[in-house]
């Protein structure tokens, strides 16, 4: 008997395996975030006719590590008159929800066996997975508001106020855009939604293209990326809520932002783009696309999931390379006057279709 009154077996199943899974996912995603910055710089460099970083390591592959070391070694600056406790707390508050959302992302479905224990290739699957992500990621705004407030800087304050207004406005169409998918799938479990797409024989972006559009636009606004990057619009507000932050505290905000990007891309992949499934899962002739199956089906799932996430992230970066930035009032107008009615109409149309079917 172990101290908690569980058998050794229960300890492993309930504590060790989840802990290892969490460690693996956090580690992989943190690394992925670092390399997402490199990917962004490389793609932008390609679009903008310039050379992206290429000095550190072969073709710049060690650049994220150099950046990380640089940020770690930076002096920790505390602005005069800042609220010390909140100033320290804000980056942490920004990053916790971002990482917590990773818990329900289904990277693949096929379980594998290690030492007789069955392990699923995702941290957990709860029946309210989508709602969990929505609610947890909404908390990220606290980090930004408190960071802007605690900095005792007008630029930071303006940036965080913009951010608050923006993220709260776009939460509404974001949630409504997802409802269409939930109605078709009949479940809010992330794994269940992918399985529903398999059973339906098509990815949900076909019937729910309007929902995907609304979701993606709102999500770009939620994650403060161009053309909706007003909270940190460097031309106007220097760096918005991050202005006074340096070193690792700044890195935490960046980490939170890029992790949110990955989460948005993962949610779009899961809900609309068929999750871990290869293209046309019903067509036998394309089975060779699952070539990683010869090792394990879970690997194949992770491969296709990653591919789709990378595609969505590419679109993100592509937008940044193409668009100017919206103005504050225009942003609000789009959110409330276009996206909200559009996503409501989408819910209505989906409902009518479900009734008439």
């Amino acid at each position, binding site marked *: 008997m172990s101290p908690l009154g569980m058998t050794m077996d229960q300890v492993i199943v309930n504590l060790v395996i989840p802990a290892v899974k969490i460690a693996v996912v956090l580690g992989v995603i943190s690394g992925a975030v670092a390399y997402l910055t490199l990917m962004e710089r490389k793609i*932008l460099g390609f*679009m*903008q*006719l*310039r050379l992206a970083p290429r000095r550190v390591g072969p073709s710049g592959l060690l650049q994220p590590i150099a950046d990380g070391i640089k940020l770690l070694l930076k002096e920790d600056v505390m602005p005069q008159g800042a609220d010390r406790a909140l100033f320290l707390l804000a980056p942490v508050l920004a990053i916790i929800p971002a990482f917590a959302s990773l818990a329900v992302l289904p990277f693949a479905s096929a379980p594998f066996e290690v030492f007789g224990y069955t392990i699923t290739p995702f941290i957990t699957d709860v029946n309210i997975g989508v709602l969990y992500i929505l609610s947890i990621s909404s908390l990220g705004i606290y980090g930004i508001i408190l960071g802007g407030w605690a900095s005792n800087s*007008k*630029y930071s304050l*303006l940036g965080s106020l*913009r951010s608050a207004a923006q993220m709260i406005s776009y939460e509404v169409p974001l949630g409504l855009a997802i409802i269409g998918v939930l109605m078709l799938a009949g479940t809010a479990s992330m794994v269940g939604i992918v399985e529903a797409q398999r059973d339906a024989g098509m990815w949900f972006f076909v019937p729910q293209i309007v929902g995907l559009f609304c979701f993606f636009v709102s999500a770009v606004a939620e994650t403060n990326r*161009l*053309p909706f*990057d*007003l909270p940190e*619009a*460097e*031309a*106007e*507000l*220097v760096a918005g809520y991050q202005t006074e932050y340096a070193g690792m505290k700044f890195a935490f905000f960046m980490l939170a932002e890029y992790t949110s990007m990955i989460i948005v891309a993962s949610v779009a992949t899961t809900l609309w783009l068929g999750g871990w499934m290869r293209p046309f899962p019903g067509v036998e002739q394309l089975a060779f696309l699952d070539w990683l199956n010869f090792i394990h089906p879970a690997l194949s799932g992770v491969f296709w999931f990653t591919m789709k996430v990378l595609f969505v992230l590419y679109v993100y970066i592509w937008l*940044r*390379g*193409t*668009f*100017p*930035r*919206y*103005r*504050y*009032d*225009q942003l609000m107008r789009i959110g409330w006057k276009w996206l909200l009615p559009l996503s409501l109409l989408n819910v209505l149309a989906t409902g009518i279709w479900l009734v008439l079917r």
Partner: protein
Amino acid sequence: MFRTEMMEINMGPQHPSTHGVLRLELTLDGETVVDVRPVIGYLHRGVEKLSEHKIYVMIPPLCDRLDYVASGSQNLGYIQAVEMLAGIEVPERARYVRTILAELNRISSHLVWLGTHALDIGAMTVFFYCFREREMILDMFESFCGARLTTNMFRIGGLLDDLPPGWIAACRHFIDLFPSRIKEYEGLLSTNRIWLERTKGVGYISAEDAISWGVTGPMLRASGVAYDIRKTEPYAAYDRMEFDVPTHKDGDTYARYVVRLEELRQSTRIIRQAIDGIPAGEIRAPKLKTRMKAPVGEVYHEIEGPRGVQGFYLVSDGGEKPYRCHFRAPSFVNLAAIGDMSRGGLVADIVAIIGTIDIVLGDCDR
């Protein structure tokens, strides 16, 4: 009860989008701009006073450093003023070369404007596209005179040297290529909804206001006044060139964008004609001393720079050095209108308006 108060914000002198060391004192009501007060002088180097202690040929390098983005125009204006003062005739070939270089300079200056303006509004890629073409122009400057930014291209009485071999061919290649590149910028901006929403109706200035503020250049033309020194008082070889003066009736940021893009095309047109019609012959007036003296008198000469009318006022007491120098800086005059243009707008409009005024602080502060 609740109490509201205005927010005072200092934008600059170190700020990403003040294009140098401009400082704006903003009074904000939330995001709405109540008042803007530009504070200048951070780049004041006393060039006018300095010029009184230098002989005439030593001043052009100082002029280059006024408006360093359009150093060729500054140079040309000063040198033509000295030539008028001293009554020097410039050979025809030199006039043509001056026209070509001044127009290339206008293109490169407008490219800096377009790139930074778009960057301020958030369109990052346009900036790099513009600098790709600017690089070609700077390379041409370098092969002509050895410098890229502060060029000191012209000499009193003409040019130091003739165009190097192959220069005309390089220039022709550039103007053949350039119209397609303008289409690329337009492809990224002109039909972009966000760009239109950010620029249309922003920073409006009426023709009357523009005239009473003394605003000149593309800003005046975008308010519907077809005033261009190259047409009204032609200098260099502009009287032989055929070109249009683009105007727009709207007077907003978008109108200025349209006018400047059209000016890029017209500049290309002028350069093409100048290259085709360039005569052979001397490039410098004969018999000029280094320590030249100008007869007693005064002269005021204006040229159409990329930002507007650049004026050069020289007073001579008959000596080797000018008795008094004054430079009319278009950036300084145009910047004065920023208050009227931005009141009632949003913070984001301020950066668009700074971009559209196209200031160079070296020019503004002198």
